[in-house]
């Protein structure tokens, strides 16, 4: 094989916030694929490009690291790949170390540490534009001579900003002399290098100082945070809702029109009520996921996200969480699925698991149809103290119950956890920068693919399974009861009544609980089906109001605050934690909480009435 045709495998290594991923995106564009490292849930990003010589270059974007002495699972991967001892991952032919030209005091230490590996290596001095703006001048030629490795200037966010790097990588890079591990004073070496090669007029950007004075202010900062969160929520609900409705309607229409070509029967029902309904159940999450992550990625890229974590860390820490848990938990109010996916920004595994554990307790938007149905049917729209509405107060109480329970569960989890060691915050607040549209677009595409490929399959197959349970066996001819009553789901519902009668649930509710597993809001339509086909043509709200007791309604409301009634969430937990154990723990504690809380509610409400 000729030298030009041989594959070159490079690994991009660097400190967090060095613009590593932007550089990776600039090099590979859309020719990248995201997977997980074997057995863990840390993202493995690989892409490729063709060098000017025609040589194919495979690029691995390693997780950001401050040091080869790993302090998190992300850093362990970077360390092991750099040492060439990660199972199933060949050592890279060449290490491209990325350093932020405006922050060389921190980043050069890692460069020196990597240099000691003795592998062929190139240093990319990134963000040269920001350095020039701040009057930082770097003698690149001298730095190259002193480091003994090629040093190339890059601007990863500018078109053509990596041309020099691409050109340099196309030529031969000699391996460095391996330096045996010793207790050298790397900081002293960095200071000497900086003194000789860099002139910097001031230490931080004036703009950062000005923004931080407002954004990190004890009062103003919290106001800014509240406004940002409010805007995100407005956007999620006002932008996503019409798209979700359109997806729902579109899939239903498409399913029906496909179904029209088939004879009435099991196959048609499977397609329309099973496959297409499942497809709809998957796709309907996409708008919320995309909009939420549009904001989360923009906030992350701009440097605001760690600031939000800074403001809230103390509050979250007292509950056994971390400042970084805030955004995932907040997202879970829209839907636990993007919320759990967003926990990837929490590097510490213990903090991440606790956040995932309590995320389903945040009242997601899918619970609202159940809440509004029951509240409208049972609670009079009376005003309290002149300004408050009784229905509103109850809805608010349900939300608060979820939040308080989440804090309590996190607090208990912290006490039960075997690992009681101190986990550090130690978080860098990077310089503010304008998010680059390309990096956000690539990030959004990745999130969408992760959801569709890894979670979509599970949701689709479970929806089809639930269709099967709800449709078979078919009712005997001439039966007047609803078809679901004869099905396996109906039988399960009747059996469930033995378990749920202490909570005040009747058999109709128990049946609706089964298909309600697919998505919480399906419980409402299932209830409608059960009652409609029983010959009740009046509206569901009035049926419920006339046939259920208040105690039953309250009990069902409380059930929905806790119940693990969403297989999509459980499927996401399985994918994001790579552990069935975590799924069972989550489902188990939620079920336990739901049962006990509903039991108490029903029994107390019955005693009082």
């Amino acid at each position, binding site marked *: 094989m000729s030298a030009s045709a041989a594959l070159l495998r490079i690994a991009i290594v660097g400190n967090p916030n060095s613009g590593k991923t932007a550089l990776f995106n600039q090099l590979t564009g859309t020719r990248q694929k995201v997977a997980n490292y074997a057995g863990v849930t840390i993202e493995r990003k690989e892409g490729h490009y063709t060098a000017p010589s025609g040589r194919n270059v495979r690029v691995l974007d390693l997780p950001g690291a*401050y*040091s080869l*002495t790993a*302090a998190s699972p992300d850093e362990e991967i970077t360390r092991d790949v750099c040492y060439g001892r990660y199972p199933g991952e060949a050592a890279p032919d060449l290490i491209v170390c990325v350093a932020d030209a*405006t*922050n*060389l*005091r*921190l980043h050069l*230490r890692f460069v020196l540490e990597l240099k000691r590996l003795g592998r062929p290596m190139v240093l990319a001095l990134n963000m040269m534009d920001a350095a020039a703006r701040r009057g930082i001048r770097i003698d690149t030629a001298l730095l190259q001579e002193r480091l003994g490795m090629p040093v190339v200037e890059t601007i990863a966010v500018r078109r053509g900003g990596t041309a020099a790097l691409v050109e340099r990588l196309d030529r031969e890079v000699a391996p460095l002399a391996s330096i045996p591990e010793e207790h050298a004073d790397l*900081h002293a070496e960095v200071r000497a290098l900086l003194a000789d090669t860099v002139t*910097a007029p001031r*230490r*931080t950007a004036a703009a*950062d100082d000005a923004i*931080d004075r407002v954004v*990190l*202010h*004890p*009062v103003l*900062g*919290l106001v800014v945070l509240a406004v940002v969160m409010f805007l995100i929520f407005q956007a999620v609900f006002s932008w996503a809702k019409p798209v979700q409705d359109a997806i729902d309607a579109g899939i239903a229409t498409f399913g029906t029109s496909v179904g029209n070509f088939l004879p009435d029967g099991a196959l048609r029902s499977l397609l329309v009520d099973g496959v297409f309904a499942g497809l709809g159940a998957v796709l309907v999450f996409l708008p919320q996921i995309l909009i939420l992550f549009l904001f989360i990625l923009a906030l992350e890229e701009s440097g605001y996200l*760690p600031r939000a*974590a*800074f*403001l809230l*860390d*103390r*509050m979250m*820490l007292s509950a056994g969480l971390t*400042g970084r848990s805030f955004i995932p938990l907040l997202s879970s109010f829209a839907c636990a699925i993007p919320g759990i996916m967003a926990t990837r920004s929490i590097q510490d595994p213990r903090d991440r698991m606790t956040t995932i554990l309590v995320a389903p307790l945040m009242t997601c938007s899918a619970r609202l149809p159940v809440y509004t149905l029951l509240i409208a049917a049972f609670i009079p729209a009376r005003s309290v103290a002149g300004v408050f509405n009784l229905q509103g107060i109850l809805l608010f109480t349900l939300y608060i119950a979820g939040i308080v329970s989440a804090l309590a569960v996190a607090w208990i989890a912290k006490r039960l956890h075997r690992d009681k060691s*101190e986990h*550090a*915050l*130690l*978080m*860098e*607040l990077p310089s503010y920068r304008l998010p680059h549209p390309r990096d956000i677009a690539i990030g959004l595409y990745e999130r969408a693919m992760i959801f569709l490929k890894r979670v979509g399959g599970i949701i689709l197959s479970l929806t089809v399974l639930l269709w099967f349970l709800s449709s078979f066996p078919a009712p005997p001819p001439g039966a007047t009861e609803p078809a679901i009553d004869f099905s396996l789901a109906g039988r399960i519902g009747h059996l469930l009544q033995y378990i749920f009668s202490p909570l005040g649930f009747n058999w109709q509710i128990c049946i609706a609980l089964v298909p309600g597993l697919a998505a919480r809001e399906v419980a409402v339509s299932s209830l409608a089906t059960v009652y409609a086909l029983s010959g009740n043509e009046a509206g569901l709200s009035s049926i419920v109001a006339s046939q259920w007791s208040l105690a039953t309604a309250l009990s069902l409301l409380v059930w929905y605050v806790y119940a693990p009634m969403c297989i999509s969430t459980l499927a996401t937990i399985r994918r994001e934690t790579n552990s069935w154990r975590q799924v069972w723990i989550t489902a188990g504690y939620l079920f336990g909480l739901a049962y006990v809380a509903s039991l108490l509610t029903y029994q107390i409400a019955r005693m009082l009435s």
Partner: protein
Amino acid sequence: MRLSELAKGATAVIQEVEDANMNDPISRRLRELGFVRGEPVRIVAQGPLGGDPLLVQIGFTRFALRKAEAARVRVVLEEIA
């Protein structure tokens, strides 16, 4: 004095990072991040609740440290140093 006791806006010079326990990974990481003898540090901001965490400026970088983490860093005020 300790970095955790430094007032907002005050500048100090690092003396040493102490290990809270044997092979303290947090202290080691602090040293790797540049918290070493002779480096000047400044408290840029404090969290809204109980002044925790602290935002520490060191070199070109800003790190958020909880007070328990900052307490590992012994410093002297700049005038004295």
